């Protein structure tokens, strides 16, 4: 894996998450004959212009037709192409779930799906554009790798790590703003291996995606209350790092925090694993409580869902 200098990390922090595929993809397009990037009238949002200009043969504009997009991606993938298919998170997952199930699952087309606007990121555009069920539905596709990176550095690492991986992958992007970085220094990244961001005691908070930054801030605030939780960045929801979860068996409480429905996502995956143990720490899942929100800024919706820094602090202090 590439080692990132502090300067390179600072450069990555100048991008919004959705633009990273273009930066990393551009490098890949230069060296990979089989690299193909496809999108459904959303290339501009991903900033693909540089790639389309220099490598027009490696770019496919499918128009607003995600079902056709994923099918074409699957066909090309089964001919040996390294295909990235891009759209908004709800439209590259739930909208095309049958396609994903059949092509990527059943037929082993190793397409890389990238969804922007995961979680509440695009809340201003309304519930159609928020993806609060994508992790849940993607987890149930056999063989699928499901990743939710926490910042641009991790996202770049994901793209590098899946190079040559003979499995389909869904990369969920959360956080729309520039500069929301969790990592300031390079670290070891492996698909399926969670990262301990902070060692603490009694309480372990497991998060992923952009909300990890809020959790880190919440943990800082909790110090003043004499609460020192462990913090784990569980970037890969599938395959889940069950060994890391098992290592938390002496904790009193495990708390999952995710920008997703509390059903079926990170919290669901952790709950499923814990439930099969004879005894395990108490579990609390923080996330969206199985509801749709009316359109509003992501920050407002996070507050409503109990996902803001202060709300997380409050919830942790009131754990029973």
């Amino acid at each position, binding site marked *: 894996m590439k080692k990132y200098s502090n300067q390179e990390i600072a450069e990555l922090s100048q991008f919004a998450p959705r633009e990273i595929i273009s930066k990393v993809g551009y490098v890949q397009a230069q060296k990979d004959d089989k690299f193909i990037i496809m999108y459904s009238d959303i290339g501009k949002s991903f900033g693909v212009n540089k790639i389309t200009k220099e490598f027009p*043969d490696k770019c*496919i504009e*499918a*128009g607003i*037709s995600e*079902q*056709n*997009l*994923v*099918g*074409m*991606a*699957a*066909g*090309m*993938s*089964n*001919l*040996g*192409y390294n295909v990235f298919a891009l759209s908004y998170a709800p439209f590259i997952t739930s909208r095309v779930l*049958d*396609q994903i199930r*059949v*092509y990527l699952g*059943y*037929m*082993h087309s190793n397409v890389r799906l990238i969804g922007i606007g995961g979680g509440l990121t695009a809340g201003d555009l309304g519930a159609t554009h928020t993806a609060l069920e994508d992790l849940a539905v993607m987890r149930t596709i056999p063989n699928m790798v499901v990743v939710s990176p926490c910042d641009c550095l991790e996202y770049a690492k994901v793209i590098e790590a899946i190079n040559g991986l003979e499995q389909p992958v869904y990369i969920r992007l959360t956080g729309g703003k520039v500069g929301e970085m969790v990592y300031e220094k390079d670290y070891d990244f492996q698909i399926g291996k969670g990262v301990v961001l902070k060692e603490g005691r009694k309480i372990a908070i497991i998060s992923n995606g952009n909300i990890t930054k809020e959790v880190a801030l919440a943990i800082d605030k909790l110090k003043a209350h004499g609460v020192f939780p462990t913090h784990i960045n569980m970037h890969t929801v599938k395959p889940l790092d069950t060994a890391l979860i098992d290592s938390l068996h002496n904790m009193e409480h495990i708390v999952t925090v995710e920008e997703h429905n509390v059903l079926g996502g990170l919290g669901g995956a952790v709950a499923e694993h814990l439930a099969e143990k004879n005894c395990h720490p108490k579990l609390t899942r923080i996330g969206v409580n199985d509801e749709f929100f009316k359109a509003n800024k992501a920050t407002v919706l996070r507050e409503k869902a109990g996902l803001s820094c202060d709300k997380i602090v409050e919830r942790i202090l009131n754990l029973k």
Partner: protein
Amino acid sequence: MSIKINKNTIKNWSEKAKKIRLETLELSYRCQEEKAHLGGMLSMVEILTVLYNGVLNIKDVKNWAHRDRFILSKGHGSLAMYSAMHHGGLLTDEEMAKDIRGEDTIIYRHSKLNQEKAIEFSSGSLGLGMPYGLGLALGLQKQKADSRVYVMIGDGECNEGVVWESVLFAGSKKVNNFCVIVDKNNIQLDGYTKDVMPVKDYGEIFKSFGFEVLNIDGHDFHEIHNALTLKSDKPIAIIAETIKGKGVSFAENSVNWHSNVLNSELLEIGLKEVNSL
């Protein structure tokens, strides 16, 4: 692949078609637990015969990656496709003798992708053969392969919206190694297509999306061969007028034989009728 057609070719194809029909009936007879989609299998026998015995270039193992692809998107007709592949030299007697379910077989009622055997698609969810075939066509073009991709869909299947997403893309981007065959047998599960979802003229629709369109008699070998081998700078749509259940009197043009259980008595009648064709 292009071959010259003479009297012998037609005779050969007629004999092959008969064998494919007989084998399709035998295979359908194995489907006692769940109804067999006999009608839509028999409607495409002549097209399958010509595809696997004179059009598809998939026998040159050296150029295997660049072979032509046939996608049976109306995958409920897979048993007829295997029979055609068997009589086209692609599947062996042993493979055809295996079960239609379970672990140790490759001839499932809905095809399961098996690239080494040129079974190109896992079918069952209607419409999905179109984008997948289009992706193969784009990939083969990028590889500078002289291969074509043929996707067979049903007229009932044309109800699926994704079909038209693919048609829009293929037509507007002139994907000219992509050929769609519509097996227009005029019946779908719930009834006649004219009652379920009447469409005046599929050819006109494809044409308006930028396709080269050929309306043919889907049981006429000359017309089928001419259509399947036509080259164009546009994608091609072949609207093949066919008879559902063709060759077996009780199944011909019968809504009940979109899918039904073929019992031993009906099997005997069917075999007898096909033998006397």
